[in-house]
């Protein structure tokens, strides 16, 4: 597991998909310090599962499964901080309502808030939808049928659109 080749391949996979880790952590954890812990935990669990990676799936499918599973079940625990630095650096571009300069930024802030308020499973589904994953891949990640994916996403989108309508001044 600890061979240099394996480690280098892992680093490349993480580098290529770092956005996924950031977005999952950001959607499930609002507290900046806990979010750092969560990202570290996701990367650690990814590494632990790396030798079991099933090549019939894309790296993104494998990564989403682990990141979402960790985010849903692990982040609430008081994670014992390891004496390691945080592997991902950079401030998350969270847009604060009061600082949103454009309508687009305001809408993005509203979308992030809406996602943050969803139930854990709906949140996962919405994230995958916004990431433009196919229904087939979403079904593989979530473990439900494609029809079920379509139905659920449609319901969440309807609520989201109604939510955005309330933002438009009458």
């Amino acid at each position, binding site marked *: *597991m*600890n061979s240099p080749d*394996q*480690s280098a391949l*892992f*680093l490349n996979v*993480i*580098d290529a998909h*770092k*956005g996924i880790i*950031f*977005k999952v952590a950001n959607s499930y954890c609002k507290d900046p310090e806990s979010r750092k812990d969560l990202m*570290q935990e996701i*990367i*650690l669990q990814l*590494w*632990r*599962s790396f030798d*079991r*990676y*099933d090549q019939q799936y894309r790296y993104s499918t*494998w990564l989403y*499964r*682990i990141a*979402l*599973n960790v985010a*849903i*079940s692990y982040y*609430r*625990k*008081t994670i014992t901080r390891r004496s*390691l*630095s*945080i*592997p*991902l*650096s*950079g*401030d*998350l*571009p969270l847009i604060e309502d009061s600082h949103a300069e454009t309508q*687009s930024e305001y809408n*993005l802030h509203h*979308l*992030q808030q809406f996602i943050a308020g969803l139930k*854990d*499973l709906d949140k*996962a589904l919405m994230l995958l939808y*916004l990431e*433009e994953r196919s229904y087939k891949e979403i079904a593989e*990640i*979530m*473990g*439900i049928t494609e029809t*079920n994916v379509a*139905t*659920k996403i449609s319901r969440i*989108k309807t609520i*989201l659109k109604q939510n*955005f309508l309330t933002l438009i001044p009458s």
Partner: protein
Amino acid sequence: MLDTELIQLWKAYDKKLETSIALNRKNTEAITKIKVGSLLNSLRPLKIFTILIGILWVLFLDILVINLFSYGSTLFLISAGMVSLLNKIAIGLYVYQIVLIHQADIDEPVLATQAKLARLKSSTLWIARILILQLPFWTTFYWSKSMIEQGPIMLWILQIFITLSFSLIAIWFFVNIKFENKEKKWFKFIFNDQEWNNVMRSVELLHDIDDYKNG
């Protein structure tokens, strides 16, 4: 808002991310050097301490019962034996639950993994229900033969009242410690720490998972 507008909005977020995040390869590489931790290492000290205390307590009770078996009061032996048995079941369930949670495949589809984890965590409620059943045995272990044969009537009335009350309380809790009562004041008062909040969230998640499976 159209679907395409939503996606475009999210893509704008992507662009912001691309310019603001970077992977520190050195720190990530450090994670790949971590040896896969044993179950024992992954447990919080408090959990290990709880299990150890539980095992020591059960051992103490068993040694007591074995040593007093030939000449101890029958009610003491039955009471201590039942308390030990109920604690053994609870410790066994607790350890089994921790082992299964540790072994859960985190790379399986989200619903399957979460259902497994949530079901295990929610079984903690069963541990509480089993432990509460020992309550009446704490009111019977000191009954002796002389107390039964020669005890004054008032002592008997008081003793029966206490044992009956504790039995009813134990049965009531055994029946009522369930997710459906999570909003009740007494439930919140007793189960009001992070550990129990996680258990409650797990049961809620199980309901959501059922909802997802049913479409």
